[in-house]
């Protein structure tokens, strides 16, 4: 396992990032920190995809100097998936931030637990 881990250090790092982000999104009380966690988690996944999609010594599949051999290029789909994923996570982050702004304007705090407590007191 040791040498494998060392050879695939990119994947290992991205998984660690994913776990850090996941834990932050789940456990942080502060909404902004939660959103930061979300972004770390997504970045971890994209790094994993990018790492898996790249092969040392090959280039993006745009034909240069007439080289047509498959061996010269990498698969473009993982990069495409990363781009799509980034678009999704940007829109989700924007939505989360706008919700956070609304909550802050109403309750003047970013702590989700405190907001819930106050809602219970309001008894709405």
């Amino acid at each position: 396992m040791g040498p494998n881990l060392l050879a695939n250090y990119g994947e290992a790092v991205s998984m660690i990032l994913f776990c850090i982000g996941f834990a932050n999104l789940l456990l942080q009380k502060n909404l902004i920190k939660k959103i930061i966690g979300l972004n770390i988690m997504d970045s971890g996944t994209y790094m994993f995809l990018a790492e898996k999609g790249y092969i040392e010594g090959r280039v993006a599949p745009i034909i240069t100097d007439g080289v047509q051999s498959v061996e010269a290029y990498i698969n473009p789909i993982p990069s495409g998936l990363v781009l799509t994923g980034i678009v999704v996570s940007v829109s989700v982050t924007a939505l989360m931030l706008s919700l956070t702004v609304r909550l802050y304007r109403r309750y003047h705090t970013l702590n989700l637990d405190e907001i819930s407590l106050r809602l219970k007191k309001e008894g709405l």
Partner: protein
Amino acid sequence: MDFVCNFPAISILMSLFSGIISSGLKQRAARMLNSILLLTVIALNATAFVYTLGTGQSFVYVMGKFPAPWGNEIRAGVLETMMATVFSLIMLLSLLGGEKKLHDEVEEDKIFLYYVLNDLLLSSLLALIYTNDIFTAYVFIEINTIAACGLIMIRQNGRTIEASVRYMIMSLLGSGMILLSICLLYDITGHLLMSNIKEEVISLYAGGNYSVPLTVAISLICVGLAIKSALFPFHSWLPDAYGYSTVSSAAILSSLVSKGYIFLLIKIFYRVIGLDIIRNSKIINVLFVFGLAGMIFGSLSAMKEGDIRRMIAFSSVAQIGYIYMGFGLGTEVGMIASVFHILTHAATKSLLFISAIGLTEVSGGSRHFNEVTGAGFRNVIAGIGFTVGSLSMVGLPAFAGFISKILFAQAALNNVRKMLPVLIVLGISTILNAIYFLKTVLRIYTPVETSYYKPLLIKDQKLYSVVIIMFVIINFILGLLSGSITNWITLGLEMFA
């Protein structure tokens, strides 16, 4: 290829574009467009359903110019077209039934946005039902989440915003896991189309290669979709989201949005991983245990609730538990029972939400049990709707709920090890259901001497009455024609693989 094969793709694109067009329309026009869209989608999908029933096999529709291993495609069989028809029908009825309330609860100049969100939600649901590409499914999962979040927070008060934040957080945890699982599957199989992934997965499994990544991918995608569909214990956001949003949203969220994810999970079981590998992977045992726990704890929470809307919301947790319990049995019969329960729950829960709003309306807008006493006399049609929905949830014969309970019980008999827990929990859960639903039914039919609240006659709420009657008819159709419906489900699941 017959012309009918275009219909699934047309209905997805139509709803997507209606959403875009509606964002520039006035309120009335947006509403008209939405109703026309839903009627057209129902007609198109019903035609496709009849067509697939006639040909007896599913068809593949290639999106774009690239053929199978590279391109994106749609696959439709009996089950997909049936689900799409039922989902759009229920969405139409829920929107019509909650329309009056929408004007009270949402600012007048924002109502057109509600229809934009609904169009987008419809397109993402249809795409989740039809797509044969797992990454497309991920993208539409996110669209679905965003649209659902909008549906919760369109009614602006502290509770709904907090509920939508909680909903988003749970959903994002789920989608993170789903995305990671898709990446892992793509890495070990090299495909994104579901059928191609399955071929590779079967050969990998037979060769014993990559067994750890495969197990991790399966468990991540199952847990991710379970979080998104609010399986116990991931339901903390649910009561607030369903209880305080506007009533059409509550009906749509509980009966359609969570079901879209569950349908995708069934598709992944059959078409991506294969039922045999799922059965051997032990992940269904986890789903089974949480499903059973959800059946009990959802009902217990519903019993403690003093608020009629939140009670119905907690009952959803229990019903989602039933569906996952059916998956957990790991047999074909269990799957059929779960799919039938998806239909039952979709039809019944939206009926309950819509009729509950009629009852609270004649009780001064209060949702607490003391206030709704005698509401069944003040609003007759809502009382009838609520009673039918409750009896169906409890599982009285001739109602839809009875059939799903009997199917679950029959499915349990096929599985020796899991038979006893299923039957015991099914019994307990039925009793708990009966306690809290019949308690409410008795309360709405308890006569009150002097009522402060004015009764609402049927002729003052024609549209609402028609909607309730339609829902009741759907319930009876599910209950009385269950034989042919289960046949279609069986046929559809065979076409799935």
